[in-house]
């Protein structure tokens, strides 16, 4: 008879969870500040969301309902495997429906449906330090945060304008949290930045390779950096979603053939399914009853 070794609930050992939990509490108390933590090896490679997985493993309980998205989609490899991981090691219920989830782990999108009170959004973060590409030394960036010295970031945005006539940063667009810390919102499209501002949900960020955790509590001011004469704007798409006809959502381009055929569809698959279920049909969509 072979017995499969049992992991502790939610995979991590209790001492690790306590260490991560203490980091999360300090991150919540100082919104936008990156708390160092002792990131563990996880049974998946760096870049697959080890930071987010460690945060989720430290907060999740048996009554939680978990949703995992990768670029808005519930059905891509990263999302499917992380969902299966927690279904196995924490025996939690999983869902693809945004409204039913208590914890949503995300790679690079915020769901279109506004999040509610009591929901926790866990971001997988590759490079948590917004100043890193401007100043490679950790000792220096730490001092810059300590002194609230963010001039360099404005110079970077200004150089964008000088070169391109507008701020050309379209993802990982830097934000200022509660008027104090400049923070990297992880590589979400800047389209999602306004959703972070005064969100009713708690937002936690985990960077496994870089050993950092940071947080934005609910109802917290998150302002995208800009200039008076070049205010922050989000992307706009000329066409609606080809499947559900949604406007004012973030769209992905899908190549249809090798003759240049393409369509734009919702990046948030749950939002798109919801709308199609409610009878919305886009230019290339098929009404649900007809399709069956």
């Amino acid at each position, binding site marked *: 008879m072979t017995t499969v070794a049992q992991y*502790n*609930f*939610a995979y991590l050992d*209790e*001492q690790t*969870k*306590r*260490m991560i*939990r*203490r*980091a*999360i*509490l*300090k*991150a*919540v*108390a*100082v*919104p936008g*500040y990156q*708390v*160092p933590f002792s990131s563990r090896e996880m049974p998946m490679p760096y870049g697959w969301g080890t930071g987010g997985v460690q945060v989720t493993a*430290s*907060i*999740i*309980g*048996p009554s939680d309902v978990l949703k995992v998205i990768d670029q808005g989609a519930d059905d891509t490899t990263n999302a499917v495997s992380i969902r299966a991981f927690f279904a196995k090691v924490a025996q939690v219920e999983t869902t693809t429906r945004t409204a039913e989830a208590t914890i949503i782990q995300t790679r690079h999108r915020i769901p279109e449906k506004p999040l509610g009170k009591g929901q926790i959004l866990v971001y997988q973060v590759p490079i948590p330090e917004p100043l890193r590409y401007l100043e490679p030394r950790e000792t220096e960036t*730490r*001092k810059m*945060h*300590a*002194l609230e010295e963010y001039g360099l970031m404005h110079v970077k945005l200004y150089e964008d304008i000088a070169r391109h006539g507008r701020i050309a940063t379209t993802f990982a667009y830097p934000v200022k949290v*509660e008027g*104090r*810390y400049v923070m990297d919102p992880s590589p979400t499209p800047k389209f999602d930045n306004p959703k972070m501002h005064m969100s*009713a949900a*708690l937002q936690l960020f985990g960077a496994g390779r870089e050993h950092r955790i940071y*947080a*934005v*509590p*609910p*109802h*917290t*001011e998150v302002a995208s950096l800009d200039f008076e004469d070049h205010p922050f704007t989000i992307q706009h798409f000329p066409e609606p979603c080809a499947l559900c006809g949604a406007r004012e959502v973030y769209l992905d381009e899908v190549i249809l053939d090798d003759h240049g055929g393409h369509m734009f569809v919702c990046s948030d698959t749950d939002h798109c399914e919801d709308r199609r279920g409610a009878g919305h049909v886009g230019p290339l969509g098929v009404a649900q009853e007809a399709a069956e």
Partner: protein
Amino acid sequence: MDALLDGGFADPVLQSQTAFRAVLDALANPGTLQTLAMPQAAPNGMGAELVSILLTLCDHDTSLWLDPALRADGALVEFLAFHTAAPLTDSAAAATFAAASSANHLPPLDQFNLGTQEYPDRSTTIVLAVPALGGGPALVLRGPGIKDQIAVSPQGLPADFLAQWVANRELFPRGIDLLLVADGQVLGLPRSTRIAEGQ
């Protein structure tokens, strides 16, 4: 039942998760009351709420400061050593966590570790047992985690608490974080919260 050996959580893994989520929700939504998980039995000298939070968050990596009344209780010190292994410290300025059974035993907040400008996360988290989380003088909270404002009325805060808290808030991002506990519940006051007298 032997309070020393049996007194911790009946189910350490899930109960510490429950207690942690209560503390997380309390700090993420300052002013709300969150329900803690309770240990089977707590040593006489210390409230079960204090024990719950220390069991959840303390271990050999966290120095723990106990107020003089708690520190003098040999059975309690043994209990905490057995269940958390947290090294005790006599210096409030060196404490990662501080537990106080009453505001009378709590030194001024600025005596604790306030963190540094580079590492504000290294400050002390203070857990203070109060007689009740309601029915006291009204306070109005504003800040991150609070939609507009919220009123709270914990009893048993230090007499000059508002002045101490204003000084603590001015240090931001440095400063201590405060957890008030009573009746199985916790109320969080992170350093980011602004507190004013209520009507």
